[in-house]
């Protein structure tokens, strides 16, 4: 019995060291309502199951108040045709696709903020008690998101292309990732909106790759996946 147990442990160790493929743990970070959960769902729908959701996204801020991890996602652009409305394939895209393969765990995190006022939730029609409960959970969510940073191999930082990107939470997050040497990709989300200005984000953070996307509409996703495979693979 004892020797079988030892054999089992040895077999497990052998599998771990001999056959384990590197899985990158990638955190989706950003301010509330930047589209983190929408992107997480888009990734799952594209590469895992189109009926599976990682979370619910609504217009109410701090909808995600607990970090959610989904493991074992294989981003393989060789076998997937990624929906990319409005884009045209270029001659270079085939060779890029051949390299674009990445196994990852995605962590959808609560939105980072420096303030959480329960009155903001009441503006969305929540009762006072519910708003206070949600605010309390949201503060815990921010702390949880910060704690998760220690475990991340890479970060996709989502920013709303219609908003001013030069917020202190964005700057602090990027500064922390740079200090840790963790790779960052900035996804300039909501590029489909008429007042979107992804160029502002590109100008604000020239030291990091910025990919304009619409996680909701699925625009330019292939470029983001290629960059993820390149940076995090």
């Amino acid at each position, binding site marked *: 019995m004892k020797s079988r147990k030892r054999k089992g442990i040895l077999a497990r160790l052998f599998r771990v060291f001999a056959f384990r493929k590197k899985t990158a743990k990638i955190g989706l970070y950003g301010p509330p309502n930047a589209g983190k959960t929408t992107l997480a769902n888009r990734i799952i729908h594209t590469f895992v199951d189109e009926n599976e959701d990682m979370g619910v996204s609504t217009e109410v801020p701090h909808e995600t108040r607990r970090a959610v991890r989904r493991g074992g996602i294989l981003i393989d652009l060789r076998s997937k045709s990624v929906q990319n409305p409005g884009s045209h394939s270029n001659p270079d895209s085939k060779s890029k696709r051949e390299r674009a393969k990445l196994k990852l765990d995605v962590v959808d995190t609560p939105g980072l903020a*420096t*303030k*959480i006022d*329960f009155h903001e939730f009441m503006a969305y029609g929540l009762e006072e008690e519910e708003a206070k409960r949600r605010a309390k959970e949201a*503060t*815990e969510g921010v*702390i949880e998101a*910060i704690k998760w940073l220690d475990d991340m191999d890479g970060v996709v930082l989502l920013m709303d292309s219609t908003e*001013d990107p030069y917020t202190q939470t964005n700057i602090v997050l990027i500064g922390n990732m740079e200090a840790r040497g963790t790779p960052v990709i900035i996804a300039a989300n909501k590029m489909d909106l008429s007042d979107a200005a992804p160029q502002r984000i590109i100008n604000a953070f020239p030291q990091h790759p910025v990919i304009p996307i619409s996680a909701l509409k699925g625009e330019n996703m292939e470029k983001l996946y290629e960059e993820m495979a390149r940076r995090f693979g």
Partner: protein
Amino acid sequence: MDLVSEERINSMGSMEKIRFVLEGVKSGNIVVLEGGLTSEEQMNLIELTMAEVSEDFPGIEMSGYPSKKGFLNMRRKARLTVIGPAKIMRTMKKEKDLISAVISAF
């Protein structure tokens, strides 16, 4: 408003600094730090702030001018950091060389 000299800030440890800032802000003061806080210290400040958010204290507003990268990119200390209570600081807007804060009396 508390304008805190770099000497005073440098004499404190990281946690002491963060606690000093948070206590000042919770008392209703706007704290301006010469020399500022590192990115890691600012993240710790956000974390500690969230632990203390209540109905009367919804959090902080914060802005600053980042410095150039430090040795081996390990320390990125701001040149100046402004932190205030979110309850009275309606907005804080930063441009290249100007931080504007709109403060409400209510």
